[in-house]
């Protein structure tokens, strides 16, 4: 049961990264791919209907972590105190930017929120990558199961690490590059004209950066956390994730070159899924790895919420999850296709010929989750 919930929480978080990941990526690229106000509106409209739904995957993941493994939630959230509160502030700024930009048409007002949107997206991508790095590297848990890490200490992943060290920073940069690639692919799928060309070009460029940074991070991980290797030696099946991830990233680059927009986006989603699956496979059954004494690590067994709770949770979770998937597929389907702003065309016209503007979807982006 604990293993099942470990898989679910991981899956939810991964879905969050795949879904909100593309709008973070779009956010980072936003100032670089747009030249005119119309283009900026197009970009914002491309994520407008979906970003909030994407963000609640984070809330749901947090809630599920709290529900299934309260002890890990308590230790992790209090231990990463400063980083998490700053994540909150950044999420608030980003949400504000998306909500408020359109409300006034003064150019300075819009420039202000453009900056907030892009900057917050960038820092969030870095912080989320660094967070993953922290989970891999481990934290100085005390025997009671709590810890506290400063934002940085001496930038080495020793026994008294900070949230930022060279490894987590590397992970942060890799995360930013991957999300930029992912966001650029999404944008290419949603736009046309000059914007499309610029998005496709960014995807090509960030694709290479992502490839290089991922390779370095992949090579560094087992040295920073030797325990990761144990699971792979014991269960080599996990290498399936590694192979899938590698193939997906190469496929992204290839599809990008051949201008298969949807396929490129699908493979970059698959790449993120596989990479995070990789990490989850290696860390299992640890939720928080102790750098102090391996016995202090919080695992899914000593942090559990109890047998009854986990069992009964299954009932509402499966129901809720089906609901979530249905509504998300519905919304993503409803807003599928290239973004059209009705500047000249009247509402009735754009409503009358939606099929000519929208391609039929060969498959849905939510599919990997099922």
């Amino acid at each position, binding site marked *: 049961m604990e293993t099942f919930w470990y898989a679910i929480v991981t899956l939810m978080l991964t879905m969050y990264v795949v879904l909100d990941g593309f709008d973070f990526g779009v956010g980072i690229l936003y100032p670089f791919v747009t030249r005119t106000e119309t283009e900026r509106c197009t970009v914002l409209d491309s994520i407008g209907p979906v970003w909030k739904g994407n963000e609640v995957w984070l809330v*749901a993941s947090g*809630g*599920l972590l709290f529900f299934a493994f309260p002890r890990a939630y308590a230790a992790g*959230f209090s231990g990463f105190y400063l980083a998490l509160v700053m994540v*909150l502030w950044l999420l608030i700024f980003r949400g504000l930017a998306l909500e408020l930009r359109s*409300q006034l048409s003064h150019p300075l007002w819009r420039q202000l929120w453009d900056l907030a949107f892009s900057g917050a997206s960038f820092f969030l991508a870095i912080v989320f990558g660094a967070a993953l790095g922290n989970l891999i590297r481990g934290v100085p848990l005390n025997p009671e199961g709590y810890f506290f890490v400063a934002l940085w200490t001496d930038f080495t992943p020793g026994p008294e690490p900070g949230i930022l060290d060279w490894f987590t920073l590397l992970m942060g940069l890799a995360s930013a590059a991957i999300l930029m690639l992912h966001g650029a692919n999404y944008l290419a799928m949603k736009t046309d004209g000059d914007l499309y060309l610029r998005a496709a070009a960014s995807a090509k460029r960030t694709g290479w950066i992502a490839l290089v940074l991922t390779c370095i991070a992949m090579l560094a991980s087992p040295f920073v956390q030797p325990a990761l290797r144990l699971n792979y030696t014991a269960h080599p099946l996990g290498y399936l994730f590694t192979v899938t991830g590698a193939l997906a990233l190469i496929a992204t680059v290839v599809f990008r070159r051949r201008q298969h927009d949807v396929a490129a986006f699908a493979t970059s989603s698959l790449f993120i899924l596989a990479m995070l699956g990789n990490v989850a496979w290696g860390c299992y059954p640890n939720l928080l790895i102790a750098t102090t004494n391996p016995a202090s690590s919080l695992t899914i067994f000593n942090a559990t919420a109890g047998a009854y709770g986990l069992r009964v949770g299954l009932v509402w979770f499966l129901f809720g999850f089906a609901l979530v998937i249905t509504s998300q597929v519905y919304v993503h389907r409803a807003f599928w296709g290239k973004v059209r702003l009705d500047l000249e065309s009247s509402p009735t016209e754009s*409503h009358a010929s939606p099929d000519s503007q929208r391609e039929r979807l060969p498959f849905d982006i939510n599919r990997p989750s099922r």
Partner: protein
Amino acid sequence: MASALLYDRLQFAFTATFHYLFPQLTMGLALLLLYLRSRALWSGDEQYHQAARFWTKIFALSFGFGVVTGIPLEFQFGTNWAKFSNFAGGVIGQTLAMEGLFAFFLESTFLGVLLFGEKRFGFRVQWFASLMLFLGSWLSGYFILATNAWMQHPVAYTVADDGRLFLNSLSGLLTNPWLFWQYAHNMTAAVVTTSCVMAAVGAFYLLSGNHLAHAKTFIQTGVVAGAIACALMIFPTGHGNAKQVFEHQPLKGAAFEGLFRTERGAGIVLVGQPNTETMTIDNPLVVPSALSILVYYDLWANVKGLDAFPKEEWPDNLPLLYYAYHIMAGLGTILAAIMALALLLLWRGRLFTSKPVLWLLMLCAPFPYIATTAGWMTTELGRQPWLVYGLLRTAQGTSPLVHSGNALFTLLGFLGLYLLLGLLFLIMIMEIVRQGPVPVTDYPAQTTGSGTY
């Protein structure tokens, strides 16, 4: 460590209070929007479509602020109250996770449909989306209140070997007897807030001579819904709540009534300042025997005062608790009176010409916000010194390794950020109200000149 506790408490109190300014409007508005959309669908009247679209904009704004200020609350359970999360997570993790999964998804998904799907979807889909918004937001409230009700009145748990609590009955948690009256009272309060806001916007338009037809719809809807909700607020929901407090948490009841000494035939203090030195009320204005009658339906019933309990069990801020309760009850009564008067005039067909009452309706918009805030202060301050009533003291629930310097840093950050948020919200809401309900054809062009962004 003591100051870290203080900052943790202040931070949660401040962020929760600020957050709840937004959901109370969205929860009430979800109901009234469903009404407006139903009227629109049923009559096909363009007027109601416009009205629904206008309030959807306000809903979206308030919802957005509610979401961004709500996430810090979920986070703070872990960041600032780690020991509490560790202790009680096995139980309340259920309701919080359910909230995240069901309600949040419903709300944000269907709000997207309403805001961005104006032209893609027909009116029926929009009505359905409104229904889902209503269900989502009220379900959200239910799960959150189930969490709070459990902290007030813990049920359905077993103690594990390591002292942590595990759930033993999900249905027991969701049908906590405490929850029923608390939820009913809270949701009617949300409807009161929204009704007052809607009536106030209507009164503003009518007094300033704009959007006259809409103004009348808003006032009518607001006053009728507000009068019903105000009545339900006092009886049975308010009464039911007070009764269960005196039954299960007599100390809290005695504290918010300012009843220092156990009395036969205890009265209700309408006005007066509690003096914790002398254990008396200064400048009291008392309705004799009223408390005995309301709680036990008996003129001479014995009501336990604060002196019946050991002092270390007392809530740590008695005067504030006392004032919070009196502000809630006082404002609630005043609002009920205003709504009753407006309803009477509406029924006689004189409300739209009665300037003083319109002014009153317009100016009373902030009162329900103050009343609900005071109501939540009553509940939460009255729960002290317990975090989980009878099981875990507040001082035992904080994060052991987050020291006061860190806690103060984030508290100050939140104060600054939320000040900015509050100002922005006011600017935005004024802009929306200034634009007013506009005909459909102008709608996209009016807001931005380019779609929704």
